[in-house]
């Protein structure tokens, strides 16, 4: 792995962001809208519900942390889509850039762009609605890490799907976080789900994060055993996603899809 090659992928994204408000705006605009929407909803709920329970960390916090995961995923796929949109696969894959370097470049880019979103989110939510991630205590650190790792895993797996299925598959992978959200116990405990849905929930690392954060807002404690398990699980997903990308890449090199990407599918 050469840092300079990974740096090239990151630099490309910086060049693109610099000249393009269309790319910069989504880094924080949707987050800002979610802060507003859910901020007002929680304010209203706090007004009508019996006093004592604070909806701000329970709901607004949960929504924003889930947004953060989506941003991480989209940061990774966004960088990958740049090569799809500019038909750059031949230039990238016929170069000495290794798959690992390429994917690392995408991941670094995703980390960078999602940190921008996170900063805007924290600034806005704390100034306008008094949400502080610090109120979760030290558990917020493993929590963010799990969401980070799982978001990256989703991004890498999503990129692999687009590589295999063609540019139109973008539409298939954008809503991936939304598809997972009912299972990830973002707003309600896993026990709310019917029994058959619970195993899916238990297989998703974010579920453990939200269970723990909910415990904290209800006056309890984070379950560090669960959080450690979730971290391990996320790492497992990340390794699996990288393996999936490598597998798809090999298939594409065998069938000739890399060289003929516009065909969308070749056997």
């Amino acid at each position, binding site marked *: 792995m050469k840092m300079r090659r990974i740096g090239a992928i990151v630099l490309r994204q910086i060049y693109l962001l610099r000249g393009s408000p269309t790319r910069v705006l989504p880094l924080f605009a949707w987050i800002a809208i979610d802060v507003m929407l859910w901020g007002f909803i929680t304010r209203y709920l706090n007004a009508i519900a019996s006093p004592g329970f604070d909806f701000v960390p329970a709901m607004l916090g949960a929504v924003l942390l889930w947004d953060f995961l989506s941003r991480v995923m989209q940061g990774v796929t966004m960088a990958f889509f740049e090569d799809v949109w500019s*038909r750059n696969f031949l230039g990238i894959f016929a170069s000495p850039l290794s798959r690992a370097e390429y994917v690392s470049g995408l991941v670094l880019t995703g980390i960078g762009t999602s940190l921008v979103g996170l900063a805007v989110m924290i600034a806005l939510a704390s100034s306008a609605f008094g949400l502080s991630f610090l109120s979760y205590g030290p558990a917020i650190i493993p929590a963010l890490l799990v969401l980070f790792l799982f978001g990256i895993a989703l991004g890498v797996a999503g990129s692999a799907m687009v590589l295999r299925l063609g540019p139109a598959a973008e539409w298939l992978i954008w809503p991936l976080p939304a598809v997972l959200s009912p299972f990830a116990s973002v707003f309600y405990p896993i026990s709310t789900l019917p029994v058959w849905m619970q195993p899916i929930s238990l297989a998703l690392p974010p579920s453990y994060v939200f269970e723990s954060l909910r415990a904290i807002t209800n006056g309890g404690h984070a379950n560090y055993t669960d959080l450690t398990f979730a971290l391990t699980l996320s790492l497992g997903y990340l390794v699996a996603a990288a393996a999936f990308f490598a597998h798809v890449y090999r298939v594409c090199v065998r069938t000739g899809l890399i060289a003929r990407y516009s065909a969308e599918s070749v056997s």
Partner: protein
Amino acid sequence: MWRAQRRHGREGPPPLTEAATPQPALAVEHLSKAFDGRIVVNDVSFSLEPGEIVGLVGLNGAGKTTTINMILGVLAPSSGSVTIAGLDLADHREAALGVVNFSAVYAPLPGNLTVAQNLRIFGMIYDVPNLTDRIGEMIDMFDLARYRDTRCGLLSSGEQTRVSLAKALLNKPRLLLLDEPTASIDPSTADTIRGHIRDYAAREKGAVLWTSHNMYEVAAVCTRMMLLSRGRILIEGDPRTLPTEHGAASLEDLFIGLSREPDERASS
């Protein structure tokens, strides 16, 4: 690079005449590719010596681009091997591709980045030393100073080809693959570009594999040519003497004659 490869062939003392018998820049052995059982490249073997410019010609669909894609590692061969400057592509992909570069009409540089940005990014990917200077050299060589900060998508197709060639020479490749490099270039610029590629081969001892449908061009630039027909190499030789050797009036006549009856020729 030479040093790195020697690790693989360490038995015995180094040959004294190494300079006289350099490693081929490219060795393709028994390369075949079938798509869904349809054979597109059929047991092709050839090699390129440093400094050689070799033309690869053939009808549309003969398998030229498929061959080039396999040499670039973006298409896995059904069988056979590709060795670049002594490095087996299948086992040493990154090192091998580090000494290769290519330009093709169907692979333009991203149109949403400027000429200078594209050259910088690809220069980093190819790990080019003294990159800023090298980018300047390439911009001068291909007369791109005016477009340095223009987005590639805005350039005319001929200008885009020049940028793509500038990218292809950035890393001073030991092997340069050009798929119809002058296809959309005006005659005068095409002539200049041919001059640059010839200079490059002579000066840097880079080997060039060049596909073209322009027989005049092949005769003018290539020291050797191969005619590919239905995935097989039909004839190979000096483009200036081949026509007479085969009793044809010109290279174009030879091309037309041979590509029309490939089965007959191949079985003789």
